[in-house]
């Protein structure tokens, strides 16, 4: 069969990109290969590990389980939109300070999941944080520090004036 393709407009991190992609190409592969946004990582590519989590219209979803053509008309947010090296997002700063990453492979998906989670629950319990992270696997098993970093970020983001 000839490879069917489609040209779509993708709104990613506030910028519109026009790409022509095979219809079978996942959003994750398209972000990485066509848009050069390699912050989104691919682990299992079957929806289990959570490394590829991005926001679709503000809600965390697996970008390996979404076709790029399906993202047309929606707003995609990747880890690249969180902060810059000079000005880290509070979550990124907290991960840095609390050693919330070891190899760092799972980190983008965890940060994206937590951004959405903390927006809905600004004052979570430790138990709620653990449950919110159940869909993100860290193969370094560095969960304790990830949870600590999430707690610290939540406290920081609750401060008045932020």
């Amino acid at each position, binding site marked *: *069969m000839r490879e069917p393709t489609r040209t779509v407009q993708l709104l990613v991190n506030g910028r519109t990109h026009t790409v022509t992609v095979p219809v*079978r190409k*996942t959003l994750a*592969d398209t972000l990485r290969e066509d848009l050069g946004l390699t912050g989104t990582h691919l682990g299992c590519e079957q929806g289990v590990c*959570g490394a590829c989590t991005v926001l679709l219209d503000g809600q965390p979803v697996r970008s390996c*389980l979404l*076709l790029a053509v*399906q993202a047309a008309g929606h707003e995609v947010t990747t880890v690249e939109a969180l902060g810059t090296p000079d000005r880290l997002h509070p979550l990124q700063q907290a991960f840095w300070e609390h050693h919330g990453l070891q190899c760092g492979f799972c980190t983008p998906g965890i940060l994206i999941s937590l951004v959405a*989670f903390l927006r809905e629950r600004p004052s979570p319990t430790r138990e709620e944080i653990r449950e919110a992270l*159940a869909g993100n696997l860290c193969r370094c098993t560095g969960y304790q520090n990830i949870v600590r970093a999430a707690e610290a970020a939540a406290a920081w983001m609750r401060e008045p004036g932020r």
Partner: protein
Amino acid sequence: MKPPVFEYCDPTTVEEAVDCLAERGEAAKVLAGGQSLLPLLNLRLARPDCLVDINRLDELDYLHEEAGWLRVGARVRQRRVEESEEVARRVPLLAEAVRYVGHPQIRNRGTVCGSLAHADPAAELPGVAVALGARLLVRSRLGTREIPAEQFFTGQLTTALRPDELLVEAQFPVFPAGWGWAFVEVTNRHGDYALCGVAAGVYVEDRRVRDVRLAYVGAGPTPVRLREVELAAVEDFRVAGEEARARLSPDGDLHASAEFRRHLAAVLTGRALRRAFERATGGEPHA
């Protein structure tokens, strides 16, 4: 690229969607939330010639009650059901069970009808549908028909849907007064498919159990409802658990042996019935 080559159509009306299915027949596969289908495509365990994406069917994005039934359109995501106060109030068993489906990231995309049509034997929502006697509304070019949940699930990952049919709506009966409910399951990790799960409804009048509905998931190729177990439960919860252990014949796999699954079924039967009883009576423990 992980998925095999396929053609893709994303119709904007149900009419177009069923036309696509009628023309393609077996070669087409419906794509709803994609949380089961995309993994199968990425692993190339499924190789459809054509995907019919129903995510643009705005007409199937409804969730409301009508004449004693909660109607869930095929585009409704699990997360919406989870967050709906109406569902929590009117079909609380569905609200309780949907939280066990995967993780929030999965439920943000996954749909209720998609989970039913995929028919994984260990999935939660098919068990709820069978326990409650849900009705599934399917449409094809030839018209609409209604399939009772107990006839919908015909085998592992297999339903009564014909290749030209689209599941457009699931209807769950609203809980009448006096009924309590519970969904309980055991998994190795939070968010996994159940090793065994039980959906239960208990009707209590004058502090006595009068009627019971029970469905098991992860305990056979389809959700299993056993009238003998339900009748036993009206008399004695513990005996019901033993009936379930004796009558269910789950398969063993690397996650759990058949014997362990039968053990879980017995234990979870009691747990689900006691919780349902407490809810039916407003907190009174079962004697």
